[in-house]
């Protein structure tokens, strides 16, 4: 009887700890087993205040909308008007961010060049130098000037349409890159002047300058070598955007590229990706304010990257004061990364479509973040380029739709006044009034 009575007592439900979640415990066990931190690709996966926390207000009695599909809403953008004698002119305000050959296959780089060119925009090299596939298929190519200087040479500098001096990256402000030995095949090793198969480390600082005063001289050198023709971008991670933007302008940048913490990387420590930097949403207004304080807003153009996924994100970035948005991860997805068609192979790698981020291992079933010839051959650059073109076109149409709804004849006419915020955090970070109010935290004159 006593035992029967005990079985009738309701039991406490098993409760998983919010602090020590299954994911956290799995990482503790993995760390305990291996003695090495987790390395992965991509950007921050944690939930962050983002563009979904902003809405457009649209037109109403006080605002006059433009007719969708019929009335003109332009999307062109000019980059590099400050000093360069040959600024870049793009049809759409969405560029393809820097991704290296080495991190990506040659086919993937070709696909990015093809898609970007068909859509009338630029693509960007990465930490491995310029490949012929990329130059040949990119109408407008931005050449990254990185701390490692892998493959750097003055001929490619002159063959580029713009130069991007990379100071920081949103996924890892203050960190250098790594490319593990699995991806250092003969061609990658030759381009980087490294032994084949070793784990490659990229420096986190430039080897021949250390601060904004030096950078000003470095930019002078780059301009003299290229005859003052090329726009010079300075890319910073989303760390201290007001000061970083100010110093980039002081150093002579034509364009500032600002990359928030959702921006991807080929391979970095997970702890770095998830715990360093600021959300993209929090960076934009600070950078714009820096440009405004210097009287350089629209004279030095601002490109924002890090978690841009749709035309709505693009429109919001522009409304907050940027001149263009840039995509990396989204472009990879568009050409086939993490596609469910490879689900069985993702499962075999211990993951699932959408979650695959071991890009550094070089075993990407989609043939994108790999140097394995058999895997890379799975990606048809022509078809993948077409998909990217389509995606860029959709993003542009979406941004135009939203701009027209706000009564704007150019996407650059979008402004903060067109937006409201859904959360206090987004209101504070973007300095956009909370929906239903005319207030945001920190609004001047409000005392909060």
């Amino acid at each position, binding site marked *: 009887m006593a035992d029967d009575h005990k079985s009738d007592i309701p039991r406490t439900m098993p409760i998983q700890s919010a602090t020590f979640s299954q994911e956290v415990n799995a990482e503790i066990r993995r760390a305990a087993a291996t003695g*090495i931190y987790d390395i992965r690709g991509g950007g921050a996966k944690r939930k962050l205040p983002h563009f979904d926390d902003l809405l457009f207000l649209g037109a109403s009695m006080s605002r006059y909308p433009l007719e969708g599909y019929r009335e003109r809403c332009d999307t062109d953008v000019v980059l590099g008007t400050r000093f360069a004698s040959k600024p870049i002119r793009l049809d759409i305000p969405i560029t393809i961010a820097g991704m290296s050959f080495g991190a990506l296959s040659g086919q993937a780089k070709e696909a990015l060049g093809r898609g970007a060119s068909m859509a009338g925009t630029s693509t960007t090299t990465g930490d491995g130098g310029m490949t012929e596939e990329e130059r040949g298929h990119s109408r407008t190519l931005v050449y990254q000037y990185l701390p490692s*200087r892998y493959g750097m*040479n003055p001929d490619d500098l002159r063959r580029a349409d713009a130069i991007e001096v990379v100071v920081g990256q949103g996924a890892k402000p203050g960190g250098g890159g790594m490319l593990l030995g699995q991806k250092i095949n003969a061609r990658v090793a030759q381009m980087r002047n490294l032994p084949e198969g070793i784990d490659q480390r990229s420096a986190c600082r430039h*080897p*021949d300058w250390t601060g904004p005063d030096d950078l000003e001289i470095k930019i002078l050198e780059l301009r*003299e*070598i290229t005859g003052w023709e090329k726009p010079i971008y300075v890319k910073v991670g989303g760390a201290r955007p007001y000061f970083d933007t100010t110093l980039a302008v002081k150093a002579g940048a034509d364009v500032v590229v600002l990359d928030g913490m959702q921006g991807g990387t080929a391979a970095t420590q997970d702890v770095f990706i998830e715990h360093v930097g600021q959300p993209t949403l929090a960076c934009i207004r600070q950078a714009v304010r820096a440009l405004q304080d210097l009287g350089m807003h629209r004279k030095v153009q601002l490109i924002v990257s890090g978690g841009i996924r749709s035309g709505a994100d693009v429109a919001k970035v522009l409304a907050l004061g940027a001149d263009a948005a840039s995509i990396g991860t989204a472009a990879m997805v568009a050409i086939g990364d993490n596609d469910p068609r490879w689900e069985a192979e993702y499962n075999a790698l211990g993951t699932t479509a959408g979650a695959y981020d071991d890009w550094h291992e070089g075993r990407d079933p989609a043939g994108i973040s790999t140097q394995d010839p058999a895997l890379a051959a799975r990606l048809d650059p022509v078809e993948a380029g077409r998909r990217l073109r389509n995606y860029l076109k959709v993003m542009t149409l979406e941004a135009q739709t939203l701009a027209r709804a706000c009564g704007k004849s150019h996407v650059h006419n979008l402004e903060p006044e067109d937006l409201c915020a859904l959360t206090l955090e987004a209101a504070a970070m973007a300095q956009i009034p909370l929906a239903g109010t005319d207030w945001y935290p920190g609004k001047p004159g409000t005392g909060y």
Partner: protein
Amino acid sequence: MQRFDLGENGLRALHKTLHAQAAQTKQAAQTNETAWEIVNPKGSHAIAVGLDAPIEVTVRGSTGYYCAGMNKQATVHVDGSVGPGVAENMMSGTVIVEGDASQYAGATGRGGLLVIKGNASSRCGISMKGIDIVVQGNVGHMSAFMAQSGNLVVCGDAGEALGDSIYEARLFVRGKVKSLGADCIEKEMRPEHLEILKDLLERAGIEADPAEFRRYGSARELYHFNIDNAY
């Protein structure tokens, strides 16, 4: 020899003139033996950068940052001292400095010969990728940091952390080495190394006995990530 007064005509005019030499040379597909003398450099930055022709340029005086940066083919002779980053990312050709060099001399250089008759400061040969550097005097700390390939010859002493995180570059030092950086070790000087060293010294116009040098290079312990190497 043609004379260019930098103080009077400015940097842009200098490079328009010198870069035009490259264009002419390519069109003519023949050697252009024109020699240039730059006077009144007054420590200016980025003098004679991005040259791409087999011309000879002599700078009469000291320069600022990045003198002869990204040089190809040209011979640049500095009759003075140079600021940071002389011959950075040099591809080919020769750069000779009669005086001392500041930080980052020959940084990321991919080819050619850099000769420094005086001393070189810290990070000489940082991330070098095939360049040959010969320093008649001493080099400062962290020289040949992450050096990938090429040769660094130091006829004097080397500062702290020589060759830290080095890859496949060869380091030859005649004097004392204050300390070696991570993964940099002394290596056997074999006959082929003595030949390389002899050739470099001859090309640099420096009289020194190769037998007096010691060779340093990578232990290759950092080539594959190992948690025990992190500190």
